[in-house]
């Protein structure tokens, strides 16, 4: 413990006062600004989830009216997708780590980075206004013509919020792409980059190419609603399936925006937690790109029952099978990395193991849904809900928590309390499976989604699910408490508490504002663990 010292001047104390934070250009401070905002939205979205699960304890619509219930699941979806999941890892961990991992002093465009946060907050404000003044009831998917014509809720306000926040995503992606291309340290070739950077790069490609389409789509919905044009409303001469094509062209790749960063985190955790180089680095790196690219070719699997042609359904179905392949490559390679590794049971690794198992289940059920025949029956049931929560919560959120725990000592200079953290991880795992496992069953049995009431024979599964949700909620609260506690009371962590490899572990915790006093020159992969066959060290 004698070597641990926090540098006297680091990015946290370099400049005090609100102005130094709100006008910062430091990517690490901006990451923290995002951390506070997305956490707030997470709890808002969680509150809506709690209300949903409470209502679903009983078959009747007795806690809230159906109209209110519609608003609850809509706001839950909008908040969780656009204001938590999509920004989470990229805007917090990505912003913090990408410059450091490429050996740079900051991202390519620091002021645009700050602007992206303000845009995010502005979009969030619009959505909050929509929530507070009565909510939206269209579902987070805003399907026309309900959203354009029939709904009496605050569609335009929420739509504007989503539109604005989309630009935050675009600017973040733009920054990452330029940084990775143009600001790598000398010697840091693409194949020496950490896999987290590869996954952030692939995520950024999706942000750039997909987000503009949902932006224009939401804008068209707002314009149609406001001016009574007939772009999507068939009564006015429009085509509602066109809306779905345009919406899902982004929203399917968006789910890869949510999962790819978590996969990048898991790649890092699995190496650090086993003291081994990843098995098949190049395959894992390319699989991130493959997921990003193929992910743009599959959106029609959301339109199987919409009136889309059968032929197009076949095409999208087979393409959806292809997109599973690179994800499978990752799972195999992580598993192969674990094999004969020095397995760690620290909290970040617990989340990594949870991710690998739960993402596999979620991903495999995705294949069920890619199968046209099966999807016809389970579309719009709880089977779908279970599928995407397995990948987004069991996958993405576990990846996020694993990453937060792993890099917490780097970000704050303090170590979180390990025993409580492991306990919380276990609670989250149990709570999660109890919440969403029954939903596969009840969905397959026929319970439709987005209804406040359901047939009485489904009640037992819903009660189990709500019990699980309560446990899950408690599980999420615990890290909030100890993370905050750790900033003030925990022991100092030192620059490399995990004994891990990587440029971020070679600099102090917390890092100085400029990250590197001198630009590093990289001579080998930044994650070579000893013993390494490639480097030949005994």
């Amino acid at each position, binding site marked *: 413990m004698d070597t641990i010292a926090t540098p006297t001047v680091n990015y946290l104390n370099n400049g005090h006062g609100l102005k130094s934070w709100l006008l910062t250009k430091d990517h690490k401070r901006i990451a923290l600004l995002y951390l506070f905002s997305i956490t707030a939205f997470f709890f808002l979205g969680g509150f809506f989830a709690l209300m949903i699960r409470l209502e679903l304890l009983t078959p009747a619509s007795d806690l809230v009216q159906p109209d209110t219930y519609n608003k609850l699941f809509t706001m839950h979806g909008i908040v969780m997708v656009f204001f938590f999941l999509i920004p989470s890892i990229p805007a917090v961990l990505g912003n913090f780590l990408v410059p450091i991992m490429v050996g740079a002093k900051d991202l390519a465009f620091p002021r645009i980075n700050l602007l992206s946060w303000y845009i995010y907050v502005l979009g969030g404000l619009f959505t909050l206004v929509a929530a507070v003044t009565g909510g939206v009831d269209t579902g987070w998917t805003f399907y026309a013509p309900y959203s354009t014509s029939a709904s009496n809720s605050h569609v335009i306000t929420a739509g504007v919020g989503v539109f604005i926040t989309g630009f935050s995503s675009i600017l973040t992606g733009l920054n990452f792409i330029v940084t990775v*291309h143009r600001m790598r340290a000398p010697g840091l070739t693409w194949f020496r980059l950490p896999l987290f950077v590869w996954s952030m790069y692939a995520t950024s490609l999706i942000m750039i*190419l997909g987000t503009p*389409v949902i932006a224009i789509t939401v804008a068209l919905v707002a314009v149609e609603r406001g001016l009574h044009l*007939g772009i999507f409303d*068939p*009564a*006015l*001469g*429009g*085509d509602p*399936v*066109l809306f779905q*094509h345009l919406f899902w*062209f982004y929203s399917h790749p968006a789910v890869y925006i949510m999962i790819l960063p978590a996969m990048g985190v898991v790649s890092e955790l699995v190496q650090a937690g086993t003291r081994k180089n990843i098995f098949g680095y190049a395959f894992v790196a390319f699989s991130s790109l493959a997921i990003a690219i193929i992910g*743009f*070719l599959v*959106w*029609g699997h959301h*339109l199987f029952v919409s*009136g*889309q*042609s*059968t*032929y*197009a359904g076949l*095409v*999208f179905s087979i393409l959806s099978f292809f997109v599973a392949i690179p994800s499978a490559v990752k799972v195999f390679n992580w598993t192969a990395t674990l094999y004969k590794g020095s397995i760690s049971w620290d909290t970040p690794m617990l989340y990594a193991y949870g991710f690998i198992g739960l993402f596999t289940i979620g991903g495999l059920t995705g294949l069920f849904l890619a199968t046209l025949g099966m999807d016809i029956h389970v579309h719009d049931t709880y089977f779908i809900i279970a599928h995407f929560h397995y990948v987004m919560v069991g996958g993405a959120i576990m990846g996020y928590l694993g990453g937060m725990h792993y890099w917490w000592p780097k970000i704050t200079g303090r170590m979180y309390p390990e025993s409580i953290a492991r306990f919380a991880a276990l609670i989250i795992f149990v709570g999660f499976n109890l919440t969403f496992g029954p939903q596969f069953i009840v969905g397959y049995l026929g319970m439709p989604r987005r209804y406040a009431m359901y047939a009485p024979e489904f009640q037992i599964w819903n009660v189990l699910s709500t019990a699980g949700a309560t446990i899950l909620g408690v599980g999420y609260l615990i890290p909030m408490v100890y993370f905050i506690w750790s900033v003030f009371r925990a022991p100092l962590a030192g620059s490399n508490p995990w004994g891990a490899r990587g440029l971020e572990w070679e600099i102090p915790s917390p890092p100085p504002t400029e990250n590197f006093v001198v630009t590093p020159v990289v001579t080998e992969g930044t994650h070579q663990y000893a013993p390494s066959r490639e480097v030949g060290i005994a």
Partner: protein
Amino acid sequence: MSGHVAPKSMYVGIWIALVIGTLLTLLAAEVDLGVLNNIVMLLIACTKALLVILFFMHVRWSSRLTWVVAASGFFWLLILFGLTMQDYLTRGWVEGTAAGVITPFTGR
């Protein structure tokens, strides 16, 4: 990026080509060439766009990365158009399914 400095005459030459292209496309539109009308129009538009991109936007002398980025944007658009239109163009192909092309204009 000091890069390549093109002579002014090159820019003027491209400008002339663009003007000619515009007049050509106007003329071609006056004649009924059937399905060729669309093809000619798109060809001229794409040529004009390519001239602007390569010469006015300097992609001709830029790094390969720049031109991959520029090309990807347009390529992605083709994905959007292609995969969406393959739905609309194949409506009613499978027997027993929704017959005919969806005509959105069924309103009043």
